[in-house]
């Protein structure tokens, strides 16, 4: 089959980092290539080069055998390359039509936008590729799956022949992933070629024809998906034998630490994002909240930590109601919180490491006597924590912004775990981290659970939830639709619940078969 795209020797470095090191890549026409690698391997950089957002230091790009230089995204678009980014490039206050036509707007009567024409074309593409989209809907009102469809239409509207999808399944339920795969197969049947960037092994084997594995900026190897296995791919990705299974003891939960009853929370736009959620978490167990991002998990955590006002319902920690408590009072009750956005919410980036390590306790003894801070004590304690938690930093005085993502997360973990706590709320604790850090954080969470702490784990990664949790709750449109013990978990069942199917129907649709319940790491 002819090569629609070929990259030869692509090299790109940033200050202090060699992101891409002499990468060779080729895509056959009408095939799906998966670009596999863990967080930080260089996949997105490579694709950004292809899309004209970066310029490579060295290397060549060939499209249909002809060498090309891509200066900027309009170049890439003109050459038939379209990219669907991991974080959508959509404007929430504009309609789907406006978003699709941006940059290539047709004009009528000399200066006026011709929105009707674009809307018509959107419906045509919609039909052809089975991408259901309302052209006049505002992006901000659309669910995430629909937004992704708009992104794909955006790319097809510009007549792309090569589509790049960057981590497209991060925000989809298992059923929606199947739907996406159907669309991809239909695209390929129509002669398009697809590059699919991901770090998820299962998906890669399900959809790709060829798999290229990147590690630390270099190509480790290219395999045919029929000849590959999860273990082989995993070890290629990480460079060592990977233990795909999390080892943990069975839990022995004790008293209820966190109790949530009929919780209702509004967001800034007065929408009810938590719509009557109820659950308990006991000491010594991990309750995992599964669900596609955007179903109220974020607001649930905000309400539990005192950051969002509660419309009605009860929250109790150790039998004390905390619904109206301030964030500080909730922290004082022994709650630790690992936020989903570590740089925005978890740290004060310009502050030194030692200040970040006492961010929640600076006003208490021994760190402060009355108003006066006790610098010596703070620095000593910080030094101990850095050692204890293996935080890679030259010293405690550097701004925490100079640390890598994994080490920043360790600072947060060190801070939260060094207080006496009863409840740990962890939101997407391993987002964007490399394998080593993921292993570390998972280990620490399980260790805390074994110490008798109650853990509430919120993550859109279903595999992570299944790997760590003792019980799994599924959240859909602000409600907890079911809670199942992890030992009896059935991934397909959970997937249906995450998509909004009612519990009874989902049960019928997914009879348990033995051998399905693998407790696996996130890949």
């Amino acid at each position, binding site marked *: 089959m002819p090569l629609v795209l070929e990259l030869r020797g692509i090299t790109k470095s940033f200050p202090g*980092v060699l992101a891409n090191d002499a990468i060779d890549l080729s895509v056959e026409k009408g095939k799906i290539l998966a670009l596999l690698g863990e967080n930080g391997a260089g996949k997105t950089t490579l694709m950004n080069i292809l899309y004209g957002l970066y310029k490579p230091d060295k290397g060549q790009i060939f499209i249909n055998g002809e060498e090309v230089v891509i200066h900027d995204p309009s170049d890439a678009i003109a050459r038939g390359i379209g990219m669907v980014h991991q974080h959508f490039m959509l404007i929430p206050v504009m309609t789907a039509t406006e978003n699709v036509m941006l940059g290539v707007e047709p004009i009528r009567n000399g200066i006026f936008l011709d929105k009707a024409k674009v809307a018509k074309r959107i419906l045509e593409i919609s039909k052809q590729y089975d991408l259901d989209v309302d052209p006049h809907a505002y992006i901000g009102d659309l669910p995430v799956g629909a937004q992704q469809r708009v992104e794909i239409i955006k790319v097809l509207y510009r007549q792309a022949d090569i589509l790049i999808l960057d981590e497209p399944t991060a925000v989809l339920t298992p059923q929606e992933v199947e739907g996406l795969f159907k669309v991809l197969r239909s695209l390929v049947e129509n002669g398009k070629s697809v590059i699919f960037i991901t770090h998820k092994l299962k998906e890669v084997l399900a959809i790709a024809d060829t798999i290229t594995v990147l590690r630390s900026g270099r190509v480790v190897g290219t395999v045919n998906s029929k000849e590959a296995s999860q273990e082989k791919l995993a070890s290629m990705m990480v460079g060592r034998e990977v233990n795909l299974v999390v080892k943990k003891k069975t839990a022995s939960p004790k008293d209820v630490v966190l109790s949530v009853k009929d919780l209702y929370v509004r967001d800034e736009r007065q929408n009810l994002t938590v719509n009557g959620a109820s659950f308990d978490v006991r000491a010594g167990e991990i309750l995992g909240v599964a669900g596609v991002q955007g179903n109220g998990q974020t607001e649930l955590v905000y309400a539990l930590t005192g950051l969002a006002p509660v419309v009605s319902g009860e929250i109790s920690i150790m039998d004390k109601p905390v619904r109206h408590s301030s964030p*500080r009072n909730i922290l004082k009750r022994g709650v630790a919180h690992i936020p989903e956005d570590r740089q925005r919410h978890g740290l004060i980036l310009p502050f030194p490491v030692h200040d970040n390590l006492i961010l929640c306790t600076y006003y208490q003894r021994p760190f402060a006597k009355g108003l006066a801070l006790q610098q010596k004590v703070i620095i000593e304690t910080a030094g101990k924590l850095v050692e204890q938690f293996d935080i890679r930093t030259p010293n405690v005085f550097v701004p925490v912004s100079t640390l890598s993502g994994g080490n920043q997360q360790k600072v947060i973990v060190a801070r939260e775990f060094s207080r006496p706590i009863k409840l740990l709320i962890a939101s997407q604790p391993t987002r964007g981290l490399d394998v080593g850090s993921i292993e570390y954080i998972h280990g620490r969470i399980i260790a805390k659970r074994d110490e008798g702490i109650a853990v509430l784990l919120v993550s859109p990664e279903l595999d992570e939830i299944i790997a760590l949790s003792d019980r799994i709750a599924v959240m859909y449109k602000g409600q907890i639709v079911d809670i199942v013990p992890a030992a009896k978990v059935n991934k397909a069942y959970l997937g249906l619940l995450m998509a909004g199917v009612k519990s009874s129907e989902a049960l019928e649709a997914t009879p348990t078969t033995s051998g399905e319940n693998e407790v696996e790491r996130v890949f």
Partner: protein
Amino acid sequence: MKAKATQTNSEASGQKEAPIYEGDRRKVSKLIQTLLVPVLAVLTGFIIGAVVIASSNDAVIAAYRNFFHAPGAALVATLKAITTAYGALFYGSFGSIAEIYHGIQTYYATGDSKSFLLGIYPFTESLATVTPYILAGLAVAVGFKCGLFNIGAEGQFGIGALCSAFVGYSIHGLPWYIHLPLAMLAGAAGGAIWGAIPGLLKGLTGAHEVVNTIMMNYISFRLSDWLLNGPMKATGYRPLTPVIENSAMLPRFFPDPLRFNWGFFVALAIAGFVYWFLFKTTLGFEIRAVGANPDGARYAGMNIVRNFVVAMTLSGALAGLAGATQVLGIDHWVGQGFSAGYGFDSIAIALLGQSHPLGVVLAALLWGTLRSGATSMQSLAGVPIEIISIIQGLVIVFVAAPAVIRWIYRIRAISTQTTVLTRGWGK
């Protein structure tokens, strides 16, 4: 069991490798680099100011008409204009060494201190002028530390001045050790309230403090107009307050007309207090955290609204105190236009001093000295005082955009953190 993390190279944007710990030599060079931009900024501002002075000087213009016949004369005229202007500036700021020396000699010879006092007059005037700048600069700096842009220093200054003047002239028969602190407190309180209002509005509604403090400025101008023409007017025609009681005046070190007073040391002491407050207390820690990352601060349990209000109140109090020291130490009464210029000057001082109390003191010394000298520049060299405003604006631009200075002087960039003040208009 510790996990062995394979050190993977991080993805493109933002994640640098941790730097090697700097030895002492590197520390010194970093200090030089931190000072370099402000120093160059001031220098460049003066160079541009020189251009403006020269081009607005009649003699210079006349000389340039004949440029091609006598280029030397044109250059000479230019240099003369600039040196006369900046010479007058220097004289106005520091006086002349010769005169001071002569004054000392005279004093030792005859016991008459008059010529000595005249000799040191410019310098002491400079110090007296510096005093309110230290406090006003601290006011804006505290705001910056919390991520707030207090453009209302001028209004807070004015209100503080009025309050302290009121206590100064309306209460009789108190000993100075009660009256003076009371008057200063009144000034601080007045400024504090004027600053707290925009702070509250920002905290509760998210309304941007830039527009609100500017509005409060205009309101304070009108208010003071009314007060000076009405309830607070001294007898007579002119809109000014009565002179304050002796017991409320800040004591001076030298006889009239030297106006150097205790206020200078009060200001230095307060600068020390602000340093301790910002860097050694829990409240200061919170304020700086909120300024650096309000989201993160909130997550850590800090009360954003309270910190905004505290910072703006403190900021207003400092500006009000600045007005108080000006009244109680220098003028002893308040007239119209009392606070003119202090608002923008204090912004320049805070920026130059990188919002650090020590930097603010140094920058205030520079600025106050210049302002003091500028009156001489106007009277001796005929250059309007507003030239200082132009230089000021340029200095602000250069300090806020180190990139411009680096581009002009081809300096390599170092990583500095700049306060981000713009967060749009609301929450």
